[in-house]
């Protein structure tokens, strides 16, 4: 029972981090119709910049710098590459993002090499005790900050001019531009925000109990893609729910690895994709996604 409780708390915390990543993924998709497979390497870039600079700047400043770097990278990608090919098929756009992903990932891997970079987070490896259960402080901090950031994002999305412009542009770009919404700016802001959220998530992702940032971090963070797909790819609420589901599933599978050993080792990494397939079998548009409607 204690183990279940521990795993649930850890799973929720991991889920909140996945939700941060998935929200950015969904945001880019809603604003520009692009499935951005480079999201994982943009996350890695942000976390890398934060980890490299935290020695000199301290954790919080480094975190800000990492977020800024990832936001800038995402914005450059949108303005220099994606904007020029707007209007081509979705499949082609996705392949372009894969190309960017390969380039970015190769360069970052070269720089990281075999190192495991620490994030310098102030909460280290302390644990909080709740009854018999031990919850790492880092996980609690990650969950609290992720929830605050998500809350701020959702409020901005619902209440501010930026949010209204974003939602109007996502619902119907042509009409939104007839209302004076500048679609290019909306797209740019979506990419930048997605990058910043990813960097933030990336830093938490590699905090304790994870040993630190290494080559494989970007790949692991990609489990946020099934999170977004489970939620429906075009729904912010879906990204939240999908993130939580993936976080819980991955944590349970890792925690009960011995009981589930008949399914082989490393189930935690595969499980999010398995859940994604199951969800898509029942609901092809995801849990909260808009169903594709075709008018003849």
């Amino acid at each position, binding site marked *: 029972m204690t183990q279940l409780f521990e795993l649930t708390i850890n799973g929720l915390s991991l889920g909140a981090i996945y939700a941060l990543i998935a929200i950015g993924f969904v945001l880019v998709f809603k604003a520009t119709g692009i499935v951005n497979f480079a999201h994982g390497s943009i996350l890695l870039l942000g976390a890398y910049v934060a980890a490299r600079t935290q020695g000199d700047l301290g954790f919080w400043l480094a975190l800000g710098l990492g977020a800024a770097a990832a936001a800038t990278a995402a914005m450059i990608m949108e303005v220099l590459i994606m904007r020029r090919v707007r209007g081509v098929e979705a499949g082609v756009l996705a392949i372009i993002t894969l190309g960017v992903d390969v380039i970015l990932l190769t360069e970052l891997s070269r720089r990281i090499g075999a190192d495991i970079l620490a994030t310098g987070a102030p909460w280290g490896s302390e644990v909080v005790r709740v009854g018999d259960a031990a919850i790492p402080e880092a996980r609690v901090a990650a969950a609290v900050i992720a929830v605050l950031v998500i809350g701020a994002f959702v409020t901005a999305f619902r209440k501010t*001019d930026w949010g*209204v*412009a974003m*939602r*109007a542009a996502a*619902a*119907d*770009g*042509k*009409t*939104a*531009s*007839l*209302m*004076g*919404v*500048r*679609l290019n700016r909306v797209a740019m802001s979506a990419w930048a925000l997605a990058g910043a959220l990813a960097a933030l998530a990336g830093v938490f992702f590699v905090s304790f109990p994870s040993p630190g940032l290494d080559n494989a971090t970007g790949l692991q963070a990609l489990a946020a893609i099934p999170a977004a797909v489970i939620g429906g790819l075009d729904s912010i609420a879906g990204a939240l729910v999908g993130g939580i589901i993936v976080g819980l599933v991955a944590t349970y599978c890792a925690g009960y690895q011995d009981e589930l050993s008949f399914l082989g080792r490393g189930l935690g990494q595969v499980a999010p994709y398995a859940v994604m397939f199951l969800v898509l079998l029942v609901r092809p548009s995801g849990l909260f996604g808009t169903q594709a409607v075709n008018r*003849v």
Partner: protein
Amino acid sequence: MIDNATDRPRSPGDTPAPTASPLLRIQNLTVSYGDAGAALSDVSIDVAEREIVAVLGSNGAGKSTLLRAISGSLALEGGQIESGSVELAGQRITGLGAADVVRRGVVQVPEGRQIFKDLTVEENLRAGGLALSDRSARREGRDRAYELFPRLAERRTQKGGLLSGGEQQMLAIGRALMAKPQVLLLDEPSLGLAPQIVEQIGGIIQEINATGTTVVLVEQNAGMALRVAGRAFVLEVGRVALEGPAAELAASDEVQERYLGVVRDHGAAIEKRVRRPQSTRPAPHELSVENLTVRFGGITALEDVSFRVEPGSTHAIIGPNGAGKSTCINVLTGVYKPTEGRVTYGDDVLTSKRPHQVAKLGISRTFQNIALSPEASVEENLLLGRHRRSKSGFVASALALPGARKERAEQIGIVRDVAERLGLTRLLERPVHELPYGDRKRVELARAAAAAPYVLLLDEPVAGMDHTESARMSELIGDLRDQLGLSIILVEHDMAFVMGLADRVTVLDFGKCIAEGTPEEVQRNPDVLRAYLGVAETTTGDGS
């Protein structure tokens, strides 16, 4: 009641002097979409400050294209301005993006309202005001919208998608007013609305204009538009065909004939085609539509519609935009399932079949917005129409076995024969996207005919054609009917075309059948005149 232009200069007096320089000047505008030929050719229109100008024309005449060219949204639709200019108060706005044109004070209400369905009424209005940086101006704008449309105030927290059609139109207009436009561009605000609501919208347009906003009103509903507007232009196939004071145009024979379907006896009367049946094929069965009701969510697209199509006859379905005509065709071809009622063809129940099964019975259709493969040649497109009739399977065709080769040769022979009948022979090798609009419409017809159907469903076969082209099309369809002994079901806006070809006419309005009979009977029916032809009679009640 509302005041849109307090902060803008206004000319003294309500009627602009004819010599005053126009607020909006469109000069020699030519617009095209890709290689599809010109959608607008050399169009020049001047709009004076505080004027209401109506732009009339049938589907595909270039009305929406004109508004897109003014509002800067043409590029978003894949179109480009080839030549000519648009000026606002002497300043060129051609080439500005849509968002910048809005900031200059020209705001378009798009066709089909296009409100943001998942945003609340209040958020929709807010989206309309995003171009204004001044918060108090936005608040004023919102209050004004609520004052003008009290109904929207009542529903401010509801999602836009839950509003009725009329309320959505009000929201779309209110949303556009939020940007404090100098010039308001309205694209078919009467689309699919009941007559009383159309009247109400007309009144609102006048009210908005009275406070100093210049209005350009694009309409198919000529009755309402000509009543509201001071001057009007008629577009036909991308050119200005007529222009003048609205009252004069409304009284002219030409406009009455063209839009009100009234046939005068001064020689322009359309001769009823004489039938020359020559078919030796078995006759089609009777097609019977029984008490058909179709609902989408809360919207009733068709309500209790019944009619019968006698074998070998031509049955027309007419009605204003949004009356349910295309829904009806989609039910007949098995694309939509009806909520109630059924359609039978001989002993078969079409409504329980899937689209390919319906096609197998020999029922083929054309599409309103041409659905051809643009890169493929005309011949390849027509061969696609023969697909249902080919027996060789995938493997036999891929290996080019003798049987498959022989069949292919036969197919090509049939396709060439159809092309010959429809005058497409010399176009057979050309890719479809190179052809002008009228020719593509004929290819679409030829493809449907190539399947050797018994029943042919034609969805607006002459939309966007001028009179000569549509007369030619009428002849081709008539010949086809006689040669193949077809039953034809025809959905069309062009009244003259329908009257010349149809044996019987069903008139839909708001999903209901309001009249049925011979073309002559229908033309005289007062309900039809009111609903479809936009001829106003005194209406009572607020109708919302």
